């Protein structure tokens, strides 16, 4: 579970059914389980107005369980990048009353939230639930490159190769944690790399 350290570090809740007629769920891997757990609390007919966009994990699990909820639409996507144009299109045409539910890894929640913020939704209006890996999406503050699925502390920037301290300092605008050079004074100092975000 994510613990609150500094104010920008996102804290996630538990999905709960919101009032309204249209519901959009975006989930990856074990995020499907958050939807399935919430379904027990949903009023009758809730899934008639629901679209679920799901990015399965490597084992391809949970698709049948999501189908069983009988949502109005279930869209399976291979990656976040591949569903982005569709998500943008949906949000551009959406009306007030659409509720957004994000569940799964922090990277997925953050990137979907980033698109929704641009579409005019407030981050406090979205339901979020963290499930699965703690891997982080990190921005190198030096070269601005984004490295996905960072699990170690410190971590190597996939762009410029600097060794970075992965901070809890998070940017909603970039949907990324900030990584700052850990040995700027003396590059020969190399602290041990530990698996910090499994």
């Amino acid at each position: 579970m994510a613990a609150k350290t500094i104010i920008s570090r996102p804290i996630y809740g538990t999905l709960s059914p919101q009032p309204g007629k249209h519901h959009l769920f975006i989930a990856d891997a074990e995020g499907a389980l958050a939807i399935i757990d919430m379904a027990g609390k949903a009023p009758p007919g809730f899934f008639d107005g629901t679209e679920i966009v799901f990015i399965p994990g490597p084992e391809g699990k949970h698709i049948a369980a999501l189908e069983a909820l009988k949502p109005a639409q279930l869209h399976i996507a291979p990656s976040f990048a591949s569903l982005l144009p569709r998500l943008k299109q949906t949000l551009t045409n959406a009306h007030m009353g659409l509720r957004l539910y994000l569940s799964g890894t922090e990277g997925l929640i953050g990137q979907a939230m980033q698109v929704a913020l641009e579409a005019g939704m407030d981050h406090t209006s979205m339901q979020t639930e963290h499930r699965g890996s703690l891997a982080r999406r990190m921005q190198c503050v030096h070269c601005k490159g984004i490295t996905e699925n960072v699990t170690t502390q410190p971590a190597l920037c996939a762009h410029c190769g600097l060794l970075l301290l992965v901070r809890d300092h998070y940017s909603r605008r970039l949907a990324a944690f900030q990584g700052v050079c850990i040995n700027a004074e003396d590059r020969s100092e190399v602290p041990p790399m530990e698996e910090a975000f499994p």
Partner: protein
Amino acid sequence: MSTGTTKLDVVVSDVVPVNELVTRFHFRRRDGELLPTFSGGAHVVVEMRDGDRTRLNPYSLMGSPLDTREYTISVRRDDVGRGGSLFMHRQVKPGLEMVISYPVNLFSLDLRAKKHLMLAGGIGITPFMAQTSQLAGAGGNFELHYTCRTASLGTYADVLQQRYGNRVRLYHDDREERIDLDRLLSSQPLGTHLYVCGPAGMINWVRDRAAALGWPPETVHFEHFAAPQPGAPFDVELAVSGKTIRVGEQQSLLEAIEAAGVDPPYLCRGGVCGQCETNVISSDGKFIHNDHWLSEEDHRSGCKIMPCVSRFEGKSLVLER
């Protein structure tokens, strides 16, 4: 000095009757300087010195926030109220020196919104006069739906239509024109914020429908200044200051506390801002809560009261003041 109630010495520069119920008042600073900057939706508390009685009523600023040479308010005459609006209509003439508070905004625009949807009822149009001026100056996207009893009581409807054309839609009660609220709320683009100002019944109706149709609470903004209601006199013990006071029939509890020389914090005097929230130490009787600040749970608990608008009926009431 009460929180946020820094005062401005002003002179009434103009008094303009708008229709049979509404009159507009213009204020300038006595020293000729510019007035403080404000944003659309802000109000001022006007001090009305009426013989030995002082009333303090909140009114929305309705002029353009881009022009601070003067402040303007519009006051609807209420013949059965506690007399504040009648005082304004009958006693306030150009040249009169008055005291008003600095502006306070409890109904501001959320400028992150992609679109602003405004619903006004009756004299609830006034904050929207300032907000539309502010947005129009910045190229903002807004739409105003204004319900009034009759065309002649549609205060500023003509001005608004002239300024903003079909961005303003009017509904007249006497022509049985009604907002198709569910349709309106269901057809707004994502990123719209909703603002409603008018009678309590209208505000409750709009908030209920918006919530049911899935509008998140943080996108729904409303303002309704409750005027303190007259009622049976009652006695109150102020435990901190060691005084026992009587609240008169036409007096609010806050006014009675102030008249006893105790100076509790206040801001809006209309049950909205929460500044004058007061703890109840003990009570034997019934609370008449008229505020929009405390939760229903707080109202039921009998542990808190908003003295600006709420009253009490019963044997005894002890407040932490």
